[in-house]
């Protein structure tokens, strides 16, 4: 009985999660006469195609490229930095607690503060904000803590004897890392990459004031919500969701195959 | 030095236990009327019975048509390798696992459909399952609280039982602040505080180190005596089962292979599987070539390929395939090989060669090989005796044992 209720609740929850998205997926599959609201007038792929056409204002394609590059950069830096820091945490060092809480606070500080703070800083220092400088920094405050906490968890469970064994067999620090540590943490790194990329790819608030002259994709989409009056907006939603889902699938597949090894 | 020696002598409180046939009718004769669990610190023990019990998980059969009687007040161990169904059997008795077919009886009550709490049983879990977020006191108190026992009585009973296990001072601590042995005692206290008729223990000693395990064995036994409860314990550890039990139930692939006292089991394993599992018995498979009487006892001559004939007590149809088993400590090793060609019906002889010698303390384990077949055998000698024998690795020998010591294992 209770299980039945819970199943029903879960089903409702899934409907709650997906319902609205299915609505815009449907609306994005309209013909040229489609509108922003139901009912659907005709079906077609017109608006999906429109996304790649020139818009009346703005451009999805370029902002998508920027978000892609930014996401990759964020992932690369977050991984390097967090792996280093979490390895440092395996040896107790002065200030480790401070750094730990600094990292936590980076997570809990409301995003609008990061955005405002970096924006003001750049302004006061008279530096141009840009998606690849200030924007990158803002994204790192969001992704590095996640990456770091995950890595901390990974190294908590990491058997140090593997490394000792490697060193015992004559491997240097670098070799030990390459040959022993890296392969063992690789699945986790894939996980971090996946998480970090999506966090960056979809990040809005922290970027909103510091993206500089060129918009990242979420900013562009937000701009579009105020500038686009056609289902192309929904089509874009459909496509970027498809892209995200593909990324998850690829990442998840990589994770699976790596952790099986 | 051996803590086992301090144990009180064993009492088997009911007639010799036996495996009942699946179609046995009537109620369990071993049980007694359950008394109210809340009266008195000691509750009357109750026997437990399984009647043609089967457990299936989808297509997989975990327990197949098992019938078993555990007398009230007995210390029973379910022994077997992992996956043999012993834990499933235990959980079915406790009510944590539904029975696919058959019945479970506690005392004379059919409890098959009852939830765990209604069975007057308690369970002590592997790794103890102490609630990590509750204090020791709260852990022990939990069962009473769930039974809606009055606050005053709970305080008294929890205090008593903590006193009994000698851990009153830990009442306010969380389980993770206790040592393994202490945790085990708390788990025991928690199980006993509700005054069950039957206590079930799922590998209770497996989390402890060797020394502690031996000591805790003694404590378990003592408590069982003190409370006069039926204990049913799951273990894969032969020595543990031997040292604790009044009744050992050896299980294999979802069936019971043998139910016996430890001594019976040790001396007369009923199947090849039991013989192998309970010790390093040497087993020879062959064909029954003759039946005879040796010293007036029905005996069998077994022809083993590559070795010749072996004699053991037992009866079987001619030409049946069968096996026999001999304990490694009941053999003799003899450097004289000449009269090998003339085997007697009383003494079994096999030519062997020493492969390896392992001194393990009191006992020295000698690995032997039957060169004709490549079969390995084990011989155990008192270390002092072995040192005096002056036998070295590689030496050819004759292993001999009497037909009396050779257990016949029908297929």
């Amino acid at each position, binding site marked *: 009985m209770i*299980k039945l209720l819970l199943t029903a*609740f*879960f089903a409702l929850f899934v409907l709650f999660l997906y319902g*609205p*998205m299915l609505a*815009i997926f449907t609306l994005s599959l309209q013909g040229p006469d489609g509108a922003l*609201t139901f009912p659907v007038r005709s079906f077609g792929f017109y608006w999906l195609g429109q996304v790649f056409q020139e818009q009346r204002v703005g451009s999805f394609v370029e902002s998508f490229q920027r978000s892609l590059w930014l996401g990759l950069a964020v992932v690369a830096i977050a991984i390097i*930095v967090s792996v*280093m*820091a979490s*390895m*440092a*945490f395996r040896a107790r*060092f002065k*200030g480790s607690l401070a*750094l*730990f809480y*600094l990292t*936590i*606070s980076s*997570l*809990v*500080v*409301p995003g*609008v*503060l990061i955005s*405002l*703070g*970096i924006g*003001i*800083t750049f302004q006061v220092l008279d530096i141009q904000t840009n998606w690849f400088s200030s924007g990158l*920094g803002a994204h790192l*405050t969001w992704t*590095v803590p996640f990456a*770091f906490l995950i890595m*901390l968890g990974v190294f908590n469970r990491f058997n140090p004897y593997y490394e000792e064994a490697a060193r015992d067999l004559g491997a240097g620090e670098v070799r030990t890392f390459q040959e022993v540590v890296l392969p063992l943490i690789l699945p986790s790194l894939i996980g971090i990459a996946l998480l970090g990329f999506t966090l960056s*790819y*979809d990040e*809005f*608030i922290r970027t*909103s004031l510091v993206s500089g002259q060129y918009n990242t994709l*979420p900013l562009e989409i937000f701009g579009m919500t105020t500038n686009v009056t056609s289902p192309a907006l929904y089509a874009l*939603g459909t496509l*970027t*969701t498809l892209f*995200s889902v593909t990324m*998850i699938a690829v990442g998840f597949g990589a994770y699976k195959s790596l952790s099986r090894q | 030095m051996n803590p086992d020696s301090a144990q009180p002598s064993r009492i088997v409180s009911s007639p010799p236990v036996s495996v009942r046939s699946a179609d046995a009718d009537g109620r369990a004769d071993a049980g007694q009327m359950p008394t109210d669990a809340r009266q008195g610190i000691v509750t009357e023990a109750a026997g437990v019975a399984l009647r043609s019990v089967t457990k299936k998980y989808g297509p997989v059969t975990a327990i197949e048509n098992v019938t078993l009687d555990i007398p009230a007040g007995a210390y029973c161990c379910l022994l077997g390798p992992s996956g043999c169904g012993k834990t499933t059997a235990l959980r079915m008795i406790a009510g944590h696992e539904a029975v696919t077919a058959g019945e479970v009886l506690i005392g004379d009550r059919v409890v098959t459909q009852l939830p765990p*709490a209604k069975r007057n049983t*308690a*369970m002590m*879990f592997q790794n103890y*399952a102490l*609630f990590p*977020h*509750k204090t020791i006191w709260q852990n022990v108190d*939990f*069962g009473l609280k*769930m*039974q809606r026992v009055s606050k005053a009585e709970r305080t008294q009973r929890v205090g008593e039982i903590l006193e009994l296990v000698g851990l009153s001072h830990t009442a306010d601590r969380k389980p993770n602040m206790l040592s393994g042995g202490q945790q085990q005692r708390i788990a025991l206290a928690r199980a006993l505080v*509700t005054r069950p008729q039957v206590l079930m223990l799922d590998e209770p000693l497996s989390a402890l180190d060797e020394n502690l395990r031996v000591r805790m064995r003694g404590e378990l036994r003592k408590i069982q005596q003190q409370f006069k409860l039926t204990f049913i314990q799951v273990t894969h550890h032969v020595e543990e089962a031997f040292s604790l039990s009044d009744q050992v139930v050896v299980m294999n692939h979802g069936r019971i292979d043998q139910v016996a006292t430890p001594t019976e089991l040790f001396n007369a394993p009923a199947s090849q599987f039991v013989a192998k599992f309970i010790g390093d018995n040497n087993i020879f498979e062959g064909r029954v070539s003759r039946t005879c009487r040796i010293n007036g006892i029905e005996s069998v001559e077994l022809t083993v390929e590559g070795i010749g004939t072996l004699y053991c007590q037992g009866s079987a149809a001619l030409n049946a395939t069968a096996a026999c088993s001999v304990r490694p400590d009941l053999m003799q090793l003899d450097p004289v090989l000449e009269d090998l060609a003339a085997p007697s019906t009383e003494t079994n002889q096999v030519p062997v060669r020493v492969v390896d010698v392992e001194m393990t303390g009191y006992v020295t384990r000698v690995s032997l090989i039957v060169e004709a077949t490549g079969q390995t055998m084990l011989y155990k000698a008192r270390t002092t005796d072995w040192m005096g024998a002056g036998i070295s690795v590689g030496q050819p020998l004759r292993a001999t044992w009497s037909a009396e010591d050779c257990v016949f294992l029908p297929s």
Partner: protein
Amino acid sequence: MYKSWKVLQPYLLATPQTLIFLMFLVFPILMIFVVSFWQFNGYAMTPAFTFENYVNIFSSQVSLATYLNTFKYVTLVWGLCVAIALPVSYYLAFCIKRESIRVLLFLLCTIPFWTSNIIRMISWIPLLGREGLVNQALLNLNLVQQPVEWLLYSDFAIVLGMVHLYNFFMIAPVFNSMMRIDRTLITAARDMGASGFEVLKEIILPLTAPGMAIGSIFVVTLTMGEYVTVRLMGGGQAASIGKLISTQIGSLQYPLAAANAVILLLFTLVMVTGILRVVDIQKEL
């Protein structure tokens, strides 16, 4: 040489991360703090040391009401997220027996989280609008005579939107906590006569508390500074501190925005510290 390297190593390894946070977290927040004492006119701010911005905030009925409104959103969103996360996680962790199905269903819950928040937000509009699907359905079923207006551009819509966006941050840690519960603890409790409800109350909920605490930190901090949902789902009518800050930024009232940000940060830190008393984060990793 090797020894001193060993001592230095953790410091060197920790340096890049520390630098990132100093540059993009600590320094900017210090700047906000400094700027919150500056003066401004319609187009520029000038360094000064004045409490005027704070005085303005604390003496304004509207900003106080806005703070209260923000707390209202935080409380509602948090409560709903917990109310959703517990049964959903419980269902996944305890009712689903097959590991593979569990993983699949959990993934099902997480996929929307991986996609654009903005898109998820605007996707409510064709559903909830005056001429949206929900209203059409209600009208067709004759449940209402007039379209229901509070579905969109209302507090309801804002809370709904935020719950939609952030419930994952509660579900994931709660689910994780539940999955970590040793199943024998439940069997043990059952063995001692605990009913289903008692098992929930005595065992599962207390052991899920750390997960709930972590989830709460996420949900609270995400909703505290939120303004996109408030703007899109509130139709520009509703107010939250995040929205106020972003409006003030838009009107170039940076020092005022900074002062609000400082207050927001203080509130957030108080809440988070409160939650952290319940849970040791380092232990939960």
